[in-house]
């Protein structure tokens, strides 16, 4: 890697320039040469359901690990029953739980952290919905599938985009607020890679506002919330259908939850730091649901495709990887290399913008704060000059985070670098969020086939609420019609007979639950 310019020097040389012209640049081979998905770190899975499927090596490593279940503890576990078990308490999980309980089901919502701890609460940009007069479901659909028709399951995108206004309405009925414009309508902004403005939002706190509302509503509902209770294995019946899960309770014993339907909503994999990238994800994003579902035999797709959000904080170290919303670029902020030049259309799709930043850094036009932290400038002072007050008013979270760390984005540009942000693929589902395993729903970031290999801003929050509701409704209907199934770990026993009779854990196990740098050892 060629030498980058030092942070101090680059800051000294920075000048506020209007109308910086974007020089012509090439995008041929931009992705193939610079996007991390093309770093050749993939392997082919070897299980029957997914034979030959390309998967990131680090992910495959955890999929192949052993179950952490201790047979003796399993025999001594307490058993509780419910209609619907939801695992994961972010946007999709909370929505599924609220929907199921609204439909008359008994619901247990289990999380390894606390209610609301998720990537959702950190989301900033907003939710897409074709509500403006100059927009249409067709345009929303076209934007979503653009350049990636083969990586999309069309029925999922059709249903999600055409139901988006109703999804927004559901959130409003739950009590969620959105920014409004002078005409009394919902304000909208344009996501990178789309043809028109359709992202509705609440300042740059959309995720916080959403989770707050869902948490308050869960609090006053009949949903039984189990905090600090990670799911370490699913339960199955004789036919291999999902019939519940084993939770590791706070007192280190096992609780077996027998359920008519299990809704996995465990989020993403950011804390695996694929390709050694920093991440925007919360602490718990360790791909737990992928592992649990994989063991039961689900079909996966596109799990070699991950989104690197172009703008994470690159400095100081306590902010490394933290998200800076795309909304700032939607509003007009530009990206500058160490020569003070623009190098990409900032509202191209995220994969292109990230790859372009990586190219600048790789070719010596990056800015380096110290050995670990390098990046390019996000020209926030220019944005402030063009729209005075916009940063503090519309991006209060970004403003506060910067100022607390000694950077004033109104006066100085912010160092930014791509951050591991989203799992584009995942478990294959149908329009109700159901996987190929009966009784097992997988919704939210865990599922695949919706965003192809490059997600648009605002489609993830739409995904979690829409499919959360679908799964909650469908799981409720199943609960009314079907009896509780037998719950065993027979799906494990076939492959791991010897291992689970031992008292000690041998070899690596998964789900890992926490990143390794948290220094946690699971007692068994």
């Amino acid at each position, binding site marked *: 890697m060629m030498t980058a310019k030092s942070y101090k020097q680059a800051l000294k040389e920075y000048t506020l320039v209007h109308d910086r012209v974007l020089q012509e640049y090439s995008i041929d081979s931009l992705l193939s040469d610079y996007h991390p998905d093309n770093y050749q770190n993939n392997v082919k899975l070897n299980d029957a359901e997914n034979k030959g499927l390309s998967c990131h090596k680090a992910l495959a490593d955890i999929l192949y690990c052993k179950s952490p279940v201790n047979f003796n503890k399993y025999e001594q576990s307490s058993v509780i029953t419910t209609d619907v078990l939801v695992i994961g308490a972010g946007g999709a999980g909370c929505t599924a739980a609220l929907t199921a309980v609204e439909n008359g089901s008994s619901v247990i919502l289990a999380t390894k952290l606390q209610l609301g701890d998720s990537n959702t609460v950190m989301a900033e940009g907003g939710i897409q919905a074709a509500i403006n007069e100059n927009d249409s479901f067709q345009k929303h659909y076209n934007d979503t599938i653009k350049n990636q028709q083969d990586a999309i399951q069309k029925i999922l995108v059709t249903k999600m985009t055409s139901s988006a206004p109703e999804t927004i309405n559901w959130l409003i009925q739950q*009590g969620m607020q959105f920014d409004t414009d002078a005409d009394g309508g919902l304000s909208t902004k344009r996501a990178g890679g789309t043809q028109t403005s359709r992202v509705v939002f609440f300042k740059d706190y959309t995720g916080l506002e959403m989770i707050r509302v869902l948490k308050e509503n869960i609090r*006053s509902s009949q949903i039984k919330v189990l*905090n600090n209770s990670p799911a370490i294995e699913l339960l199955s019946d004789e036919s291999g259908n999902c019939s519940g899960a084993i939770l590791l309770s706070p007192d280190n014993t096992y609780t077996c939850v027998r359920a008519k339907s299990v809704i996995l909503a465990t989020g993403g994999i950011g804390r695996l730091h694929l390709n050694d990238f920093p991440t925007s994800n919360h*602490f718990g994003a360790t791909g737990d649901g992928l592992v649990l579902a994989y063991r039961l035999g689900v079909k996966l797709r596109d799990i070699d495709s991950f989104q690197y959000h172009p703008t994470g904080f690159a400095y100081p170290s*306590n902010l490394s990887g933290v998200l800076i919303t795309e909304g700032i670029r939607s509003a007009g902020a530009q990206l500058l290399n160490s020569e003070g030049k623009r190098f990409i259309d900032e509202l191209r799709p995220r994969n292109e913008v990230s790859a372009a930043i990586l190219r600048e850094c790789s070719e010596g036009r990056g800015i380096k704060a110290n050995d670990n932290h390098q990046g390019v400038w996000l020209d926030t002072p220019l944005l402030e000059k063009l729209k005075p007050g916009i940063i503090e008013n519309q991006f209060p979270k970004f403003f506060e985070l910067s100022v607390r760390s000694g950077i004033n984005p109104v006066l100085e540009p912010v160092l930014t670098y791509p951050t591991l942000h989203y799992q584009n693929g995942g478990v294959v589902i149908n329009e109700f969020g159901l996987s190929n395993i009966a009784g097992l729903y997988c919704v939210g970031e865990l599922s695949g086939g919706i965003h192809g290999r490059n997600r648009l801003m605002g489609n993830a929050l739409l995904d979690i609420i829409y499919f959360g509701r679908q799964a909650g409704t469908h799981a409720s209907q199943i609960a009314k019609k079907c009896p509780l199934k037998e719950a065993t770990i027979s799906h494990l026993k076939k492959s791991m007979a010897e291992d689970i009779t031992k008292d000690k854990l041998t070899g690596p196990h998964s789900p890992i639950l*926490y990143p390794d740098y948290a220094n946690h050892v699971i007692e068994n």
Partner: protein
Amino acid sequence: MTHNRKIQIDVDGNKILCCEGVSIIQALWGAGISHVKSTGCMEGVCGSCRVLVRDNELQQVKTELACRVIVKQNMQIYFVPPTYSKAHSFTIDEIRESKNIQHTFRRIFPESVDCRQCGGCDIACPKGIEVEKSVQLAIKGKFNEVSELFTECVLCDFCEDVCPELIAPNHIGMFSRQVHSLTLSQPVNLVRCLQTRNKI
């Protein structure tokens, strides 16, 4: 690492050697300490990493979010477990169907009128929200103003924990936001879009 100097901090009664210039949580991990509870978003919006903190030079103990506190020599830190209270819960349907929102408020938050104006909630809030002023405004029925003041609340529950009258200002804030949301629940572009769709 940016900073090579090691410092000593006290966490939950244990002396720990760690790097300076990083957050409390990063410091614990860097020192090889196992820390998986009281950790969430790592950027100050989930309210999970509640701590009591005393800077060495100062007398005052502050309530903070650990992911946002940079460690300093001899800093004392205590992690505070979550509260899990079920009191003061309400549904949006109760608000929507209420014939007199003031009465509904008084029924759900009867302690609010006993506010001593001790300022404890203001001091406790790690986000600098004007909590006490919000309680006073809510009593007067100015829910929209409270809603604005509570824009940045992360439901860390510190204000609820410290209140001597057991008021739960955090939930007053959420109640007010939901009252406010009902005045915004008919945005023209969304309504027109839904009506058109239903006609088909």
